[in-house]
């Protein structure tokens, strides 16, 4: 493998992140499959996460955004349930016909045209994680499970990871200065437990397991929903060939990703870094030559 190929495999495309991180003998890559078609918006995941991880309270606000007063992911919100009210019937569904066999979201049999989307968002634990790439201290690291975790005893609060994340996940805790985000319950994984949010989810909307298995299960679920007429169902973050090399935490959505506040086609910013360094090099040289030429050009007046 030439150095160029090695570099590009580290910065983009399908790859084994734990192996790239230096783990030779590691467990399978673990992740989340969040099936939003069965989310009931109970926020048990949000609560379980806060409790288990000792995530502090970050303001009790009333937003008027349906049932969402959490607003979005940040330093003190590692699971966020989005609520979206739409004047749109569930695609292909006929009033009075039950789809109990696929467990699709309930609609009013009398023919309501309101659909209420709920989705629990979380850190994507990207295959190519920009937050990890740009962290100058090595505080952010890749675990043996292929997940991305902040070592809080090292983070110096430089804040670089925050605008690097294409999903708006990681953020700075105000009274503390360090960056915080979902650890995929690294402490629980190490002793064979599933993450707190998945454990608390009453409908199995949040499913935890080896990523390979989850991707298979998700593909079957989408197929089943399509057969049942829910043609809006689509997977998000499942594709290892997308701009971040696939997410460790991916989703089944019932509308465009941006409707849920997710970027429709995220790309890890460091994919372009080799080109950025080249441009910096040429610019630096241009300046050096220009300033030196300013001396060569004229006589001493």
């Amino acid at each position: 493998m030439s150095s160029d190929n090695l570099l590009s495999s580290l910065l983009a495309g399908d790859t084994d992140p734990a192996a790239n991180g230096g783990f030779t003998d590691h467990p399978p890559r673990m992740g989340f499959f969040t099936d939003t078609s069965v989310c009931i918006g109970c926020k048990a995941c949000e609560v379980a996460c806060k409790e288990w991880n000792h995530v502090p309270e970050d303001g009790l606000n009333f937003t008027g955004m349906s049932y969402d007063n959490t607003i979005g992911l940040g330093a003190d919100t590692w699971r966020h349930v989005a609520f979206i009210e739409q004047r749109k019937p569930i695609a292909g569904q006929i009033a009075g016909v039950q789809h109990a066999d696929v467990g699709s979201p309930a609609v009013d049999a009398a023919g309501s045209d309101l659909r209420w989307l709920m989705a629990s968002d979380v850190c994507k634990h990207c295959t190519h994680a920009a937050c990890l790439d740009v962290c100058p201290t090595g505080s952010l690291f890749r675990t043996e499970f292929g997940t991305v975790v902040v070592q809080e005893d090292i983070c110096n609060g430089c804040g670089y990871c925050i605008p690097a994340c294409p999903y708006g996940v990681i953020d700075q805790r105000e009274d503390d200065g360090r960056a915080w985000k979902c650890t995929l319950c690294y402490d629980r994984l190490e002793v064979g437990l599933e993450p707190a949010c998945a454990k608390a989810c009453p409908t199995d909307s949040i499913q935890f397991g080896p990523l390979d298995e989850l991707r298979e299960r998700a593909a079957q679920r989408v197929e089943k929903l399509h057969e049942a007429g829910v043609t809006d169902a689509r997977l998000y973050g499942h594709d290892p060939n997308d701009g971040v090399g696939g997410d460790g935490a991916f989703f089944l959505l019932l509308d465009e990703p941006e409707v849920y506040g997710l970027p429709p086609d995220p790309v890890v910013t460091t994919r372009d870094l080799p080109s950025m360094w080249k441009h910096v090099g040429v610019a630096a040289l241009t300046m050096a030559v220009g300033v030196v030429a300013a001396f060569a050009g004229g006589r001493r007046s």
Partner: protein
Amino acid sequence: MSTSDVTKDGLQGVRPGRDAMIGVAAGRENGARASRRRGGERSMVPEAKFSSYYGKPVLNAPVWKAPDIAGYFFLGGLSGAASVLGACASATGRPGLAKASKVGAFVSISLGMVGLVHDLGKPSRFVNMLRVFKPTSPMSVGSWALAAYGPAAGTAAFSAVTGRMKGLGALATGTAAAFGPFIASYTAALMCDTAVPSWHEAYREMPFVFVGSAATAAGGLGMLAAPIDEAGPARRAAAFGAALEFAAAQSLTGRLDEPLSDPYHKGTSGQRLKISEALTAFGAVGSMLLGRRSRAAAVVSGLALLAGSALSRFAIFEAGMLSANDPEHTVRPQRERLNRNSANG
């Protein structure tokens, strides 16, 4: 608290506009756009629709503070270019320009580094910057470069002011001049290596904008602090920097599509960039016409160039903040890219 009542005749006193219709299907436009329109601005072009989650940003905006970080972009650029200017001035027998540039380089990089440490969430842990070396992190590479450059710039300045340690001073001058161009330019990669759309998509031109702005500032400092008869190269370096920055900025705003180009020519950031360009042009033209005749003109031109360079960095910083906080900047280019790709099969 609900303001509506349920009566036999239906709902009374319902507040309008509370139906949270989100998404392409609902045909809802973005909240930020809607409020912009309420501000009285009307577009003749039908606005492209895009969806967002209640108009909330997709990204988390940088937590960097402008005086620290935009200030460092300016001071680091000034310092890096001044080190090159100072070394050349030493080599060509211009002691006044050399001393001014070397002292200026050391003072500005010191102030810049104070800003960097101050901006950390945990300033006491600044030394963790040298815990690892990561080529994938421009901030890590920059920290190591600063660790070499800072002491060199300090030694060069010390030697130039006191006239002692001439050999070490010359070595330090050379080292600082070797690192200077990188110190002036890596900050562009640092800034563009983020998901902030108006920064990231500008990564090809931004290093040239930054080094142009750096040369302008260092030239301005040379005019300000060095004797007129030694400041010729400073004037030419400033003119070169101004031309480079202007050309790179034109190419940048010309290449970016809206909405990503908007912060560079609209709003407060756009206005500041225009003022910056005017100051830089005034300083460059003034110095070339009058700089060698009048001390006052050299000082005024030098100040204008320094101010223009600083304002340019603050404006570009502000442009990124606007871009990060606007969901349209994140969603629209990505959605258009997806649509293009699916149209191409």
